[in-house]
C-alpha cells in the first residue's frame, strides 16, 4: 500500500506569493495514497530536509513528492534526503510549482488549482515508481589516443603521467603532426620543432606509453570502460628491432622523385624514408607504392644490401593487433584545402601561387630552401609577396561558411617572417577582418603592421593571373572607397580553409561518434561539454573537432586527458539507472520481444544487443533484444518504437507516464 508524503515549499515568497501553499498541502493530503502532507518555507534548506527525513521515518512513507522548484534544480538534493531516510531515492519526485506555475501566473484560484494539479500528477507517478539502483560497469584502465600530433601527444603525456597505460596510434611514420611542419609559432615566434620535439621524445621514452606509428585503427567495438580495438600495424618493411637509424638506406635509395608530403609537395623524397630529421621514431619505412622492389617485382634491393644490420625485410606483412582500452581520445587533427577551390586564384596553374603550409616549409630552416623564401618556379627571392586571407573560408556560396580561426594569425606571421628575411621586400595582405582574439595576438598583428611594414588592404581579391612574368593580383581597397587595386606580385600565398581530414568520416564511423556536415567531430554540448562526444568514453582533442590554434589544442587535449583520468579514478563506473530494459520471464515465454530489432535501429548509442535465447539443450529458440545498461543513455526512443511494448524505460516507464496523464486529468474534486 502506497504511503506518499507531500511536501509543499513556500520558497520564501517565490511560490507562496501567488499559490495558496497551505491549501495545496491540505488538499493534497486528501488524495488517495497520501499519508502525510505539509507545507514549509524552505524545503531545500537543512531544516527543510530534516523535516522530510523525519517525516519519512515517522510516518513510514514509501515515497515523496516535493512541490517546489524545477527538478533540474533540486531533484538530486531531495533524492539524497530520501536515501538518508532509508527509502530508495527513485521514489522521490518533484512537482515543479515554481518555474512552471507560481512565477509565470498571477495570484489567483487558477494558479493554486494548477499547482495542485501538478502535485497530483506526480503523486500518481510516485505510486508507480520502482526502486532503481545505480549501474556498475568495470573499467579497463588503459587509454587509446588516436593521432600523434600535439593534441595526441599532450593527452597521452597527461594520462601517462597520471599513472595509466596509454596506447598511441599514428598513421604516418612519425608523430608530430602539422606542428612539426611549422617554422615558427605565433605569437612568440618560437621555433615550432624546438618546442615540439622534446615532447615527442618524452612520448617515445615514457614507460606508460606504447607508441604505434605507421598504424591505423581498424575497428572499435565495446563500450565505455570496455572497448575492444583492432589496430592495423602497416608493413614498414624495416625491422625496427634491428634498425639503428643510421640513414645509409635512404641516402642510397635510387627512387628520389617522390613528392615529399612533409614539405607539402615542394621537394622530393626517397621510397625508403624518414619524414623529417627529428622524426620519432627515427627509423625509416618503405613507401611500397613507390618502391621499385615492390612495383617492379624484386628489381633494386639496394637498401637491403647496404643496411649494416640487415634490418630491411621486404616480406613483412601488415599485422592486426587487438587491444582492450577503457577510453579513447580522438586527436586526428586537420588538413588545409590544397586545391583550386577558387579557380580564379590560379592555384595549381602557377607554381608561385602557394598555400599556407607550403609557405611554412619555405620559411622553415629544415625545408626545401633552407629557410630562405624563394619562388618555387625559378628559385629567385620574391620582391613582392601578396598574402590572401580568407581564401576559402567564411564563404557560404562556396560551401565553407565557417571561419578557419588560425589564418589571420599565421598570415601576419608569414608576412613578418618574409619581411624579417627580406628587409627590402614588399608584403601585402588582402583581408576581410582581423581575428586576433587570443592572448598577445592583437599586439602580434599590430607588430606586423607597425614594425614590419606589412601593407594590410581591406578587400578581397577577384582574380590572379600571370602576365609578363608577374602575378597580377586584382583586388579592391574597401577602406579607400572601393578603389580597385592591382598588385604585381612575385609570389602569392593563399590562406586556404582548414578542413577535416579526408578520412575523418571513416574514423568517426569506426568510433560511432557524430560529425557535422563539414566532417568535424561533434562535441556533446557546444558550451558545456566541448571535449566529450555523445559516445560515452570517447573524447575529442584538437582540430578534429574544429579549427583551433596550438594553445587551445593543448588545453583541450589536457581536458580530454582529465576526463579520461576521472573515468579511471574509480574501481568501477557508476551510472544513473534511467535505462531501458527488455522484459524477460521464465520459460516457455522468455520474453514478449519478437526480435524485430527496430529498437536497435533507432538507438543513437548502439546500446541494444542481440541475445540468443536458448533452451536447456542449447537449441536456439529466438534472438531477442537486450539493452546494454552501460551504454544506454535513457532517451526512451526504443520504448516508443516497440510495437508490442516489450521494452520499457526505468524512471519513465509506460505505467508511470500513463499514471501522470490519468492523474492530471481525472480530478477527484473541482
Amino acid at each position, binding site marked *: 500500500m502506497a504511503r506518499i508524503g507531500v511536501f509543499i515549499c513556500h520558497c520564501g515568497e517565490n511560490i507562496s506569493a501567488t499559490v495558496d501553499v497551505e491549501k495545496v498541502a491540505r488538499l493534497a493530503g486528501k488524495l488517495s495514497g497520501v499519508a502525510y502532507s505539509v507545507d514549509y518555507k524552505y524545503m531545500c534548506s537543512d531544516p527543510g530536509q530534516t523535516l522530510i527525513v523525519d517525516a519519512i521515518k515517522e510516518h513510514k512513507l514509501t515515497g515523496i513528492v516535493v512541490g517546489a522548484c524545477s527538478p533540474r534544480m533540486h531533484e538530486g538534493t531531495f533524492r539524497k534526503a530520501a536515501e538518508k531516510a532509508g527509502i530508495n531515492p527513485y521514489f522521490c519526485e518533484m512537482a515543479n510549482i515554481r518555474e512552471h506555475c507560481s512565477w*509565470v501566473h498571477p495570484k489567483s484560484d*487558477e494558479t493554486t488549482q494548477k499547482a495542485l494539479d501538478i502535485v497530483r*500528477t506526480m503523486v500518481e507517478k510516485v505510486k508507480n515508481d520502482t526502486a532503481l539502483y545505480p549501474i556498475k560497469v568495470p573499467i579497463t584502465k588503459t587509454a587509446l589516443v588516436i593521432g600523434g600530433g600535439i593534441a595526441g601527444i599532450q593527452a597521452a603525456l597527461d594520462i601517462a603521467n597520471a599513472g595509466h597505460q596509454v596506447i598511441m596510434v599514428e598513421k604516418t611514420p612519425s608523430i608530430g603532426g602539422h606542428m612539426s611542419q611549422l617554422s615558427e609559432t605565433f605569437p612568440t615566434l618560437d621555433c615550432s620543432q624546438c618546442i615540439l620535439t622534446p615532447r615527442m621524445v618524452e612520448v617515445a621514452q615514457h614507460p606508460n606509453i606504447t607508441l604505434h606509428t605507421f598504424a591505423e585503427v581498424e575497428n572499435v567495438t565495446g563500450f565505455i570502460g570496455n572497448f575492444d580495438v583492432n589496430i592495423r600495424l602497416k608493413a614498414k618493411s624495416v625491422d625496427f628491432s634491428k634498425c639503428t637509424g643510421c640513414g645509409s638506406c635512404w641516402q642510397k635509395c635510387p627512387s628520389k622523385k617522390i613528392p615529399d608530403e612533409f614539405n607539402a609537395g615542394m621537394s622530393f623524397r626517397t621510397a625508403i624514408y624518414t619524414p623529417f630529421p627529428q622524426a620519432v621514431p627515427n627509423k625509416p619505412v618503405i613507401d611500397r607504392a613507390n618502391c621499385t622492389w615492390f612495383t617492379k617485382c624484386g628489381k633494386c634491393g639496394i637498401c637491403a644490401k647496404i643496411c649494416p644490420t640487415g634490418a630491411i625485410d621486404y616480406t613483412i606483412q601488415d599485422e592486426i593487433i587487438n587491444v582492450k582500452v577503457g577510453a579513447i581520445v580522438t586527436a586526428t587533427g586537420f588538413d588545409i584545402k590544397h586545391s583550386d577551390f577558387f579557380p580564379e586564384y590560379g592555384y595549381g596553374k602557377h607554381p608561385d601561387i602557394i598555400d599556407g603550409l607550403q609557405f611554412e616549409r619555405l620559411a622553415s630552416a629544415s625545408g626545401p630552401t633552407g629557410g630562405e623564401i624563394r619562388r618555387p618556379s625559378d628559385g629567385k627571392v620574391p620582391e613582392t609577396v601578396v598574402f590572401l586571407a580568407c581564401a576559402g573560408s567564411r564563404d557560404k556560396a562556396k560551401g565553407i561558411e565557417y571561419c578557419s580561426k588560425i589564418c589571420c594569425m599565421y598570415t601576419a606571421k608569414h608576412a613578418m617572417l618574409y619581411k624579417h628575411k627580406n628587409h627590402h621586400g614588399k608584403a601585402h595582405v588582402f583581408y576581410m577582418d582581423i581575428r586576433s582574439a587570443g592572448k598577445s595576438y592583437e599586439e602580434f598583428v599590430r607588430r606586423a603592421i607597425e614594425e614590419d611594414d606589412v601593407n594590410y588592404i581591406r578587400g578581397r581579391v577577384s582574380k590572379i593571373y600571370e602576365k609578363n612574368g608577374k602575378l597580377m593580383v586584382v583586388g579592391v581597397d574597401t577602406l579607400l572607397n572601393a578603389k580597385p587595386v592591382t598588385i604585381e606580385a612575385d609570389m602569392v600565398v593563399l590562406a586556404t580553409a582548414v578542413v577535416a581530414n579526408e578520412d575523418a568520416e571513416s574514423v568517426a564511423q569506426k568510433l560511432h561518434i557524430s560529425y557535422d556536415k563539414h566532417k568535424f567531430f561533434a562535441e556533446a554540448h557546444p558550451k558545456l561539454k566541448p571535449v566529450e562526444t*555523445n559516445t560515452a568514453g570517447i573524447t575529442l582533442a584538437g582540430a578534429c573537432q574544429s579549427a583551433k590554434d596550438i594553445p587551445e589544442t593543448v588545453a583541450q587535449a589536457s581536458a580530454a586527458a582529465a576526463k579520461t583520468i576521472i573515468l579511471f579514478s574509480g574501481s568501477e563506473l557508476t551510472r544513473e539507472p534511467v535505462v531501458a530494459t527488455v522484459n524477460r520471464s521464465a520459460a516457455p515465454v522468455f520474453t514478449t520481444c519478437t526480435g524485430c530489432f527496430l529498437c536497435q535501429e533507432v538507438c543513437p548509442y548502439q546500446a541494444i544487443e542481440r541475445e540468443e535465447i536458448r533452451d536447456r539443450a542449447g537449441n536456439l529458440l529466438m534472438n531477442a533484444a537486450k539493452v546494454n545498461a552501460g551504454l544506454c543513455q535513457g532517451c*526512451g526512443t526504443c520504448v516508443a518504437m516497440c510495437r508490442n511494448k516489450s521494452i520499457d*524505460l526505468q524512471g519513465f516507464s509506460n505505467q508511470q507516464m500513463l499514471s501522470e496523464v490519468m492523474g492530471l486529468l481525472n480530478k477527484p474534486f473541482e
Partner: protein
Amino acid sequence: MAETFEPKIVAFVCNWCTYAGADLAGTSRTKYATNVRIIRFPCTGRIDFMLLIKAFQNGADGIIVSGCHPNDCHYTSGNFHARRRWMVFKSMLDFIGFPTERITFSWVSAAEGKKWAELVNETTDSVRALGPFTEYKNLDFSQFNQIDHEGIAEQSR
C-alpha cells in the same frame, strides 16, 4: 452566468530543451496563460502517441508536443523519430476525422523561454476558439469499468 470555457492543455515535452525553456520562462517571470500542464519526458522520442489519445479521452481539449530543434537533440536523433512519428500519426488522425488542429507540434529550445510562453498563449487561444473537445465525452465509459480479465483469458486458452 455562463462561465467562459477555459481549455485544458496538456504539454508533452522533453527534459533537455522545452522543459528547460519553460524553466527559463519561469526564471524570467514571463507571464502566460494558466491552462497548460506539463508532462516531462527524457526525450520527445520517448513519447508514445497513444498517450495523446488517452489525454483527449480523459478531458484534455488541446495538446502541445515540443522538444529540441532538429539536429539539437540531446540524444542525437530522438526528435527526428518523434517528428516522423508525428507525421504518420497526424495523417492517420486526419484520415479518421480527428481534429488535429487541437494538437500543436513544436520545437522550443532551452534558450527560448519567450517562445514557450508565446506557444502556450497561442495554443490556448486557438483551442479556446475551437471549444471543448466533446467527441468522446458523450460516450458512456462506466460500462467498461468491470472488465472480466480472467474470463477473457479463460476463453482464449
